[in-house]
């Protein structure tokens, strides 16, 4: 079926009695559906069925059906939100980050290596590889901002209603907000993550492929 929204404007242009009756009927039906839907938000499938019923019954009043459709969609979306589960931390993303760090900074190689017996000069050389490479990865795929912009080791005020996941109070945590204290660490907040997208079926567990030179 192909509905035309512009028909709505034609609605007040002299509807006859039969149309008015049909209109009233459809509105009642709609209300009933909505009320029932509101009671049982979890039963998504049923509501969808009802929606189809409504369509069939009031087929003639095209403009109103369109209206119903819109409301329906909103309702269904809400239910989905309620049903949304907690996000699990994705192992693929963690593996991907390790893979990037390995490729650019030889991170896994370094961590897996036994440093006993290596001279500080050797470790220093390796540290440069790790630092330059990691910096490249971090800067390319993440954007950071400090949480507090004040100088560290200076006096700061923590206002009422602060976000405890952004600001951690430590030491003599007593009294009530606003708190005054020394900013020990300015904090970091990631403002943007731009990790590469992975192909379907990409095995993220392979952090570095074995290399064979021919």
């Amino acid at each position, binding site marked *: 079926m192909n509905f035309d929204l512009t028909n709505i404007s034609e609605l007040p242009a002299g509807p006859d009695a039969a149309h008015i009756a049909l209109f009233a009927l459809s509105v009642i039906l709609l209300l009933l559906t909505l009320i029932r839907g509101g009671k049982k938000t979890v039963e998504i499938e049923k509501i969808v069925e009802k929606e189809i019923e409504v369509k069939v019954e009031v087929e003639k009043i095209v403009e109103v059906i369109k209206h119903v459709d819109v409301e329906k969609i909103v309702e269904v979306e809400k239910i989905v939100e309620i049903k949304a589960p907690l996000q699990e931390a994705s192992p693929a993303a963690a593996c*991907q980050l390790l893979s990037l760090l390995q490729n650019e900074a030889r991170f896994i190689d*370094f961590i897996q290596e036994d*440093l006993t017996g290596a001279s500080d000069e*050797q470790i220093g050389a390796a540290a440069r590889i790790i630092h330059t490479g990691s910096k490249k990865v971090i800067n390319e*795929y993440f954007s950071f901002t400090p949480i507090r912009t004040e100088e560290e080791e200076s006096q700061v005020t923590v206002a009422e209603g602060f976000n405890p996941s952004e600001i951690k109070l430590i030491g003599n945590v007593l009294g009530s907000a606003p708190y005054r204290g020394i900013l020990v660490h300015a904090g970091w907040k990631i403002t943007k993550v*731009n990790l590469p*997208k*992975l192909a379907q079926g990409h095995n993220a567990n392979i952090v570095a492929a074995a290399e064979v030179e021919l």
Partner: protein
Amino acid sequence: MSDITETTAKYSIGIDLGTTHCVLSYIDLEQEGDKVAKQLFAIPQLSAPGSVTEKYQLPSFVYQAHEDEISKDQTPLPWNADNTTLVGDVARNLGLKTPIRLVSSAKSWLSHATVSPHDSILPFSSPDEVEKISPVTATSQYLSHLADAWNYAHPDAPISEQDVTITIPASFDPAARNLTAQAAQALNLKHLNLLEEPQAAVYSWLQACGDEWRDQVNVGDTILVVDIGGGTTDLSLISVEEVEGNLTLSRVAVGEHILLGGDNMDLALAYRLKMKLMQEGKQLQPWQIQAITHACRDAKEQLLSDNDIDTMPIVIPSRGSKLIAGTMQTELTRDEVKQTILDGFFPATAVSEMPQQNTRTALTQIGLPYAQDAAITKHIAHFLNKQHDAIATDAGDFIKPTAVLFNGGVFKSDAISSKLIGIINDWLITADVEEEAKLLTGIDLDLAVANGACYHGYAKQGKGVRIKGGLASAYYVGVESSMPAIPGFEAPLEAVCIAPFGLEEGTNHDVSTYQFGLVVGQPVKFKFFGSTVRREDVVGTHLDFWQPDDLDQLPDIEVTLDSANRNSGDVVPVSLSVTVTEVGTLKVEAIANDSDETWEIELTVRQ
């Protein structure tokens, strides 16, 4: 509705089609306001098999993978799940370890005089088993990737409808320009323009200055643009003129094609370090040279900046999983960088000193005709000398620029830009010029070409200053002079001017004063010449003598008369017609004098 093609461009798109990477920036033409909001486009691309990332640069590389190398489902792109072409970051990364499968420098091959750009020759000189593509195909793949990425991000504004400007080196000959336009054909662009890179840099400067550019330059000024890219150095002269009371800019001269750029500098440093390590008894593998070259690029920038770092450590990681044991370390000192880069590439030479033609250096490689003399200052001096007639006022022996604009990542090093402007000013002082050349600043050295290209599309709509361009060369075809045959001597060659210097886009000239007899059914070749200095010649000017430096021989051009109405072997009298298209390419046609038939003369054949 008839004007719909004129009005549907929502964006002006600038594509910097670079030797080593491409950048796309754009301006929303429908947005009102004084400040031109140009934006960089983040290009989705494979960074490794199975991994798609967005970057502002698309490395200009194609990787011709072996069938066992990468499984098919690991190369999807957001707009094409079945993609198998490896373009961009992934190609460069894979090519580091398997160079025989890496297509690179396609752009330089487009302007290569002895290789046919339609022949599948890349990756150059790799084993026959590797599937080869032509330089035009490679260029086309970069452009198609950009177009697909754009269309994916802008489903309502396909690139074919937009105003697109692709940049090319100012030194590109007509064939290389046509080839670039050919490579863009797959995009079905309705509004395509080719723009010379140094001009794009000036557009970028104009945009950065806003209305204040008029305070920075005056009538009679000559701006020297030095654009040092990864692989090429491109020179242009822009003169500031007054037309009907308004300041206008006009590009009056372009330099020769110099294959010498920032990559050569990094390579030179890497070889210097290789020598140093060899003296310590350490041998380097080819893959280690590559690692050093990368490290040198960053170190060079640090050591040539205004700071007090005197040495930069260079670490070459091992290839195996043991990082500590196999890693090699050395350092690059400020003195070494100064000697190699400042003295090697920017020596303080006199303006009369010309580039040497016969000293082969370690930087050359079989294949591309890399510049033999690494001294960029000498190339600039040569350009200023050769173009001494370029401006209206008498310049004397060489052009004395009143302003200089530098572009390219190389100039991020303060030491390089201050040394080069210093040398140019020394030339001026020696020639008794009172005022020093002014250094024009304010452009983004990495992005100016792309930014300038999209600003060009914007300016074209009457919203900003335009630079007057036109042909930067006069063009000639060679004809054998009619004289009695002398055994052992070829008939002397004469040249007929078919396109005058400065011929503007969208204009046409018929060479009716000179007629040629062409044989039907046989390809006929013409010798083809360009001159960047003969500004006075008009269409039909007949030269029987010229200075060796005046005319440069370009690859031959060719036409085949296939005519249903004529017999093979007939001789048809034709005259030539030359058009500079709106796109900025040259079109030469042979027109029959006894009918209305025309045949296009192919500029891009090379053998």
